């Protein structure tokens, strides 16, 4: 009898252990798959890691701001805002004019922001109005809105500029005198206006980040003294930070190319600032109202929250942030195609945030940043991995697109699957939430 009970409990423990492992796997399967895939890709491609780190740093600093601009509409229950394309158009318009006036560097960037903001707000207002009339279909409306305004954008910059809107600039305007040229070159102007404001070597940034991290861990530890679980976390966090610092020092000592990589600190600060702002914003009255509206429009309306107005504000904020994000994107790219650069902004930003684990109804800063990192890692690694695998340049390219879209599809499938699995494992899911 006794032996039986013993067996029973040990089996139970095993089950619990297994459940927690499988719970962890289900909860993070997307991330796990991505990391595995990226590692496999890196291995196969035999890619130079300096190149990878360099590229991922510039891609992350280029795109994070844009992807973060998607969060607020999701919270307000409006889904993924495909209409950020309009914000990008506002940014491009601002950049074109600032380039025309010849304001360069950081002042130029500030001027762009000053110009783009009112335009983005106006566009955001219009979009918000439209979305209020198409509740429940914001995403498809946003996509079509993008197409629609592309027509207007063409009209303005191809037919009006140089004609009705005077612009006398040989470099920007077509030789016929009407219409902006297809490529706008920012070299010597806005290029790196923000990125090069303040840069530090990657290793230095790592050391600083490590020190700050340690300070934070110590602060947390002191604040919550006594809890044994905290102890483990503290040690873990502390170890991570020390590892970062040691690693940075090792890189420095090795004289590897990685130590030459420099980080655009100003851009990163802007991104960090946005993250802080979003976090703070959600705690404000307006942010709380947005969450309420996002949770249940009807209840919000009954509670006296002006739902339509809140939704418009959400879209306007997203639009303004997107226009700033696109300015950051453009100043890093250094040149853009006048009639095409804005097109893909929506789809790729949305893809990135989805991969980070966000859904149409839930998105967090962490998901956005993780998404940018994973999405772009895949895009960096996949082309050469494909080439190495097939030994044929174009098959590699096709393979890359197949993997990229396929992975996004699988990611979505896995998120949905995860949701199902979690509902089947209520105990674990609950434990995870806490």
């Amino acid at each position: 009898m006794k032996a039986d009970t013993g067996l029973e409990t040990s089996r139970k423990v095993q089950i619990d252990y297994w459940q927690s492992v499988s719970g962890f796997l289900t909860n993070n399967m997307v991330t796990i798959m991505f990391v595995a895939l990226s590692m496999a890709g890196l291995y196969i491609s035999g890619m130079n890691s300096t190149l990878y780190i360099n590229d991922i740093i510039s891609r992350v600093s280029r795109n994070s701001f844009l992807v973060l601009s998607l969060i607020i509409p999701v919270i307000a229950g409006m889904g993924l805002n495909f209409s950020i394309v309009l914000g990008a158009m506002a940014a491009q318009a601002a950049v074109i004019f600032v380039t025309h006036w010849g304001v360069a560097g950081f002042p130029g960037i500030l001027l762009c922001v000053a110009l783009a903001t009112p335009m983005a707000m106006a566009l955001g207002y219009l979009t918000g109005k439209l979305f209020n009339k198409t509740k429940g279909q914001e995403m498809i409306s946003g996509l079509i809105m993008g197409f629609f305004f592309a027509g207007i954008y063409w009209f303005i910059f191809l037919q009006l500029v140089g004609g009705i809107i005077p612009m006398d600039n040989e470099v920007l305007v077509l030789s016929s005198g009407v219409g902006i040229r297809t490529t706008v070159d920012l070299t010597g102007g806005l290029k790196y206006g923000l990125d090069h404001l303040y840069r530090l070597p990657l290793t230095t940034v790592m050391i600083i980040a490590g020190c700050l991290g340690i300070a934070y861990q110590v602060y947390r530890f002191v604040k919550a003294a006594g809890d044994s679980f905290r102890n483990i976390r503290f040690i873990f966090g502390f170890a991570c930070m020390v590892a970062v610092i040691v690693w940075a020092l090792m890189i420095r000592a090795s004289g590897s190319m990685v130590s030459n990589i420099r980080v655009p600190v100003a851009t990163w600060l802007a991104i960090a600032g946005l993250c802080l702002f979003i976090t703070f914003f959600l705690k404000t009255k307006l942010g709380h109202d947005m969450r309420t509206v996002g949770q249940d429009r009807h209840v919000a309306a009954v509670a006296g929250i002006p739902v339509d107005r809140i939704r418009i504000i959400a879209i306007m904020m997203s639009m303004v942030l997107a226009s700033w994000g696109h300015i950051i994107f453009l100043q890093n790219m250094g040149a853009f195609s006048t009639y095409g650069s804005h097109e893909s902004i929506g789809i790729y930003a949305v893809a990135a945030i989805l991969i980070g684990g966000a859904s149409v109804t839930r998105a967090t800063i962490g998901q956005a940043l993780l998404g940018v990192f994973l999405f772009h890692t895949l895009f960096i690694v996949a082309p050469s991995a494909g080439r190495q695998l097939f030994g044929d340049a174009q098959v590699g390219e096709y393979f890359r697109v197949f993997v990229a879209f396929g992975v996004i599809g699988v990611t979505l499938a896995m998120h949905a699957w995860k949701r199902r699995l979690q509902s089947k494992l209520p105990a674990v899911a609950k434990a995870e939430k806490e």
Partner: protein
Amino acid sequence: MSEHYLLQMKNVTKSYYGTTVLKDINLDLKAGEIHAIVGENGAGKSTLMNILFGMPVIHSTGGYQGEILIEGQPAQITSPQQAMSSGIGMVHQEFMLIPNYSITENIKLNRETLKHSFLSRFFGRNLKTLDFKSMHADARKALDTLDIGIEEYTRVAGLPVGYMQFTEIAREIDKTNIKVLVFDEPTAVLAESEAANLLAAMKKLAARGIAILFITHRLDEVMEIADNITVLRDGRLVATRPKEATSVYELAELMVGRKVEKMTRRTDQVSSGNIVLSIKDLSVRMPGEVVSGLNLEVRRGEILGIGGLAGQGKVGVANGIMGLYPSSGTVLVNGEKLPLNNPRESIKRGLAFLSEDRRGVGLLLDSSIEMNIVISSLQNQGRFIRRFGPFSQLNSKEIRGYALKMIKELDIRCTGPTQIVRRLSGGNQQKVCIARALTLNPDILFVSEPTRGIDVGAKRLVLETLVRLNEQGMTIIMTSSELAELRSVCDRIAIVTGGTVAGILSPDDSDVNFGLLMAGQKAGKELSA
């Protein structure tokens, strides 16, 4: 003006697209009064309350005629905000709660206490941050007023309905200027003991000088707490009576407009039929209504009632046997083992089910009445269909004929068999569900909450239909939260508590026995806390 009225409505009239739905309603309300408004579904109660609360639906369809006076002053209420600032609060029939928020956040919804933040000094009020400390304190106070012990920072999602209701009420009483509180069918979703708690709370509020408008179907509740009672029928005010001057029977009569006699109990008691359904160790994982290890035997030809408090698992029994929620255990139908978790098999063995979740599970809301009636039989028994080798086609003629017959038989009020079910009233939707279940010609019919959200007239018809079917030889297992309803039609009543059968009683057993079984375990303690 002999008396000082808090709220008066004078000749209020409202029409939608040329159809008058409310005509010349007059209503007077004093401080501390509990005023009940009763009436069948569609009598105009909800419209009246929507007018009072300034809901957008009223004003987007042309407003209303007549006058509303608040404390003697004429008031034009054009938005919920305005209603709130005039001191009118409402506890909605469908909860106006956000499940992912804590109780505090729900109570303080859009009335959050704010404090200055770094940015608010530049950008104004909207960027002030929420002051959770003082919000929690306020919420605590409101909950204490209602004697609710639950923690104010609990998330609303997953709470029993009773607590949700109290959260709503707490929100209203937290409003500092509240003068009139409207309860829109608050007890419809509550179990009996929860409802009793609610009524007690309402009395307490009235004692504090708040006027209460109480909309309900349940006449016994009205008689229990209301001071005055107004009856609406077909958009008109039929009568206003003080409680002392009326009775349940009179009210029912006024409401329905025809004489109502008390439901007659059946006389041909089935005492010893053979066992038609035997349930052994049944467990059902239905969220909120978990069944664990339940045993029950059903005799041929009886009406077996399943009662119990909400959340104790009574609803899970039928859902589990019909394969709608994952279940385990042994179920024997006519001595044969029923494969679980397979709705098709259950239907094949002659089981049919009227779900408690009519709109969610019971109906194809956007399909026609006739399709709703025939589809189960069509899919599982191959009726109403013409076969051409491997191909099949609907037999439109047969379907139409059959649907017309059922519509007539069950008195489904509709424009025709092709009308979309969504447009029907709750009672008629329920009749469509019954029609579908009947089309299957089941041996055993499971019925869950057959009268929930249905007006008195239809309620009676539904119950009568069940009795008639039973007399024709159908075994019926009826789950209901309304004990009186069970006692009026059932042969035996099983009370489910904690996921198992606590006991089986005869409908004639004393109230005390029922009460003890239902409150048997800790449930009683929890609810009275």
